[in-house]
């Protein structure tokens, strides 16, 4: 129940309920004002019959039908009925006393005048009461006339007088209701928009941030659910990171445990090398050395491949000057190519910065250079160039080897290129290989924005 009272539904129900109640109360109040405000003046004699009877009685009760008495009577009634008119016609048909009577009445009344007046005023407006005063010998006519509107019920009077006020009130009330409803929904809308914005905010780990719950209503509940979800996502991310950590650790340890004995093999081989060996022994030892290098590289590639496949290879991209990066990478490989008498041609123009992970980029170049050293030795040539055309910028690596299709004595190239492929695609770059008996050209391309999109 408490929860219901805090809900938006309850609030809106209250607004609707208030609207209905206030309409009723408004009518009640308007009615009451009308009744209390206009009814006080004519409590008893709102009735025409009542007025008629009282007039007759009053006239009959006159002691003397004198001018003075009549004037007193008139003044007395005038207090009660300010809108009323009165006059007295004596036995000779002369208008003796007149108080606010209708204009244009004759001064001298004939029988015809009286009959005509009587006919005119019968059931007419103003309401007219004609009473006879005095004894039979000296009868005279005392007339009371009053606009019929004074007999209207007070509500009608009020509505005629103050009808526009009621209209304005009702209109005002409707507007008030619309404004209150608007404000009510506007506030809901604003809160929802704020919530939407808050849901869009991400912290440094790319996770949503909890929102502050201020109210206990439906939106408040929604915010709480959202916060709950955020907590769950965080927990899940933590679990994932832990698993990732365990996995990385496992692979690192495995790699370590494979390399340690390999190092020992090398140590022993090196020790043997110090002895004086036969030519056959030297050859065998060289084969061991090469195998150690191959196993070393294979372990490395295998670990990298496993991590890449599981998307667990650390990826921290940043803006790098790619020409400079390639130049520096090539500088470290230069002695190896030099040793094998390669012709080395470098032509790196300045390119835009590339948004890549330097470790990944380094790995790609290492794998490609290593492949050339191992599989394209015959060509004795390596070219490294930059390319900048409308669609893309590219780093081009060329060799004059026998091509990738030719079975090299080693098949280790496959996994090395698979890693290159995954890393290139992982950094939103593209690459292509053109290979033939005359050599291989590898192009790592960064599409220019707005061309491919």
């Amino acid at each position, binding site marked *: 129940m408490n929860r219901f009272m805090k809900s938006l539904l309850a609030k809106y129900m209250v607004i609707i309920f208030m609207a209905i109640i206030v309409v009723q109360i408004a009518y009640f109040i308007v009615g009451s004002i009308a009744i209390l405000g206009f009814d006080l003046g004519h409590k008893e004699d709102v009735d025409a019959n009542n007025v008629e009877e009282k007039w007759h009685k009053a006239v009959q009760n006159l002691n003397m039908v004198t001018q003075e008495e009549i004037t007193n009577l008139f003044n007395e009634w005038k207090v009660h009925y300010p809108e009323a008119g009165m006059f007295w016609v004596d036995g000779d048909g002369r208008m003796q006393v007149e108080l606010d009577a209708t204009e244009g009445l004759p001064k001298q009344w004939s029988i015809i005048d009286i009959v005509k007046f009587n006919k005119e005023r019968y059931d007419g407006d103003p309401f007219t009461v004609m009473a006879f005063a005095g004894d039979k010998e000296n009868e005279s006519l005392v007339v009371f006339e009053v606009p019929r509107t004074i007999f209207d019920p007070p509500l009608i009077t009020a509505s005629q007088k103050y009808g526009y006020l009621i209209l304005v009130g009702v209109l005002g009330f409707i507007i008030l209701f619309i404004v209150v409803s608007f404000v009510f929904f506007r506030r809901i809308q604003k809160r929802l928009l704020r919530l939407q914005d808050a849901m869009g905010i991400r912290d440094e780990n790319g996770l949503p941030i909890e929102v502050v719950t201020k109210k206990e209503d439906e939106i408040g509940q929604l915010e709480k659910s959202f916060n709950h979800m955020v907590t769950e996502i965080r927990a899940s991310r933590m679990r994932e990171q832990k698993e990732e950590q365990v996995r*990385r650790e496992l692979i*690192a340890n495995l790699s370590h445990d494979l390399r*340690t004995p390999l190092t020992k093999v*090398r140590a022993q081989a090196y020790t043997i090398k110090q002895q004086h060996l036969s030519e056959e022994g030297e050859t065998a030892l060289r084969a061991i050395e090469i195998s150690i290098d191959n196993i070393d590289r294979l372990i490395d590639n295998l670990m990298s491949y496993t991590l890449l496949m599981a998307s667990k290879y650390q990826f921290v991209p940043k803006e790098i000057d790619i020409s400079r990066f390639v130049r520096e990478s090539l*500088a470290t490989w*230069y002695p190896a190519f030099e040793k094998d008498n390669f012709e080395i041609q470098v032509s*790196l123009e300045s390119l835009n910065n590339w948004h890549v992970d330097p470790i990944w980029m380094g790995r790609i170049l290492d794998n490609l250079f290593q492949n050339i050293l191992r599989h394209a030795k015959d060509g004795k040539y390596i070219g490294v160039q930059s390319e900048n055309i409308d669609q893309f910028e590219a780093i081009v690596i060329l060799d004059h080897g026998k091509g990738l299709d030719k079975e090299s004595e080693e098949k280790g190239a496959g996994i090395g290129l698979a890693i290159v492929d995954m890393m290139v695609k992982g950094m939103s770059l593209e690459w292509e290989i053109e290979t033939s008996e005359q050599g291989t050209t590898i192009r790592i391309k960064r599409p220019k924005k707005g061309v491919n999109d």
Partner: protein
Amino acid sequence: MAHVLYIEDEREIGEWVEKDLTARGHQVTWLTSGEGLDSYISQSDIMILDVMLPGLDGFSIGRRIKKDHATLPILMLSARTSVEDKVEGLDFADDYLTKPFHPDELAARVEVLLRRFQKQNEIIELQHLIIHTKDGLVVNRETEKEIQLTGKQFHLFQFFLKHLNQILTKEQLYEGVWGERYLEGDKTLMVHIRYLREKIEKNPASPTIIETIRGIGYRVKL
């Protein structure tokens, strides 16, 4: 000859490296764990550190020692090859070599580090030149005359000598010597190299000491 402090728990590898480095003229102190390490630090010129060790791991040891002895070069020598390990290692260490390494490579890297940290007053004989790195003295062996270099020229030459046998790009040289970001098209470096060559090369038109590596940079090879 340098004093090498070497921490390695694998006996076979430890013995081998100790023997090899000793044969190359270094004095090696080999420990199988980080215990008792501190007493050797003051007399060491370089430290070679394995990662997987009993007790404290190599990263923790290295980080602690680098904090107290910033001028002691540390070379991590590990069978852990993951990117994370290398990144963590190079966070404090000066070099990171993975197993299985070739002893020549280890020796070369030790040399580079010793030179970089100028642990010895090394006398380098480079073709017709004799260079005393610490005193900043360059002598022409044939004429037995000192070659006078300006401050910037010696600074540049010294940078090459610290990175002997390494190819240095224009950017690396400029940023290493001038300490400012290299801007494409800046001729300052080329001008200084020309002046330097005029002083130290026998024939500045076809230099043999400061080699030009086309498209990449320059190199001084021992």
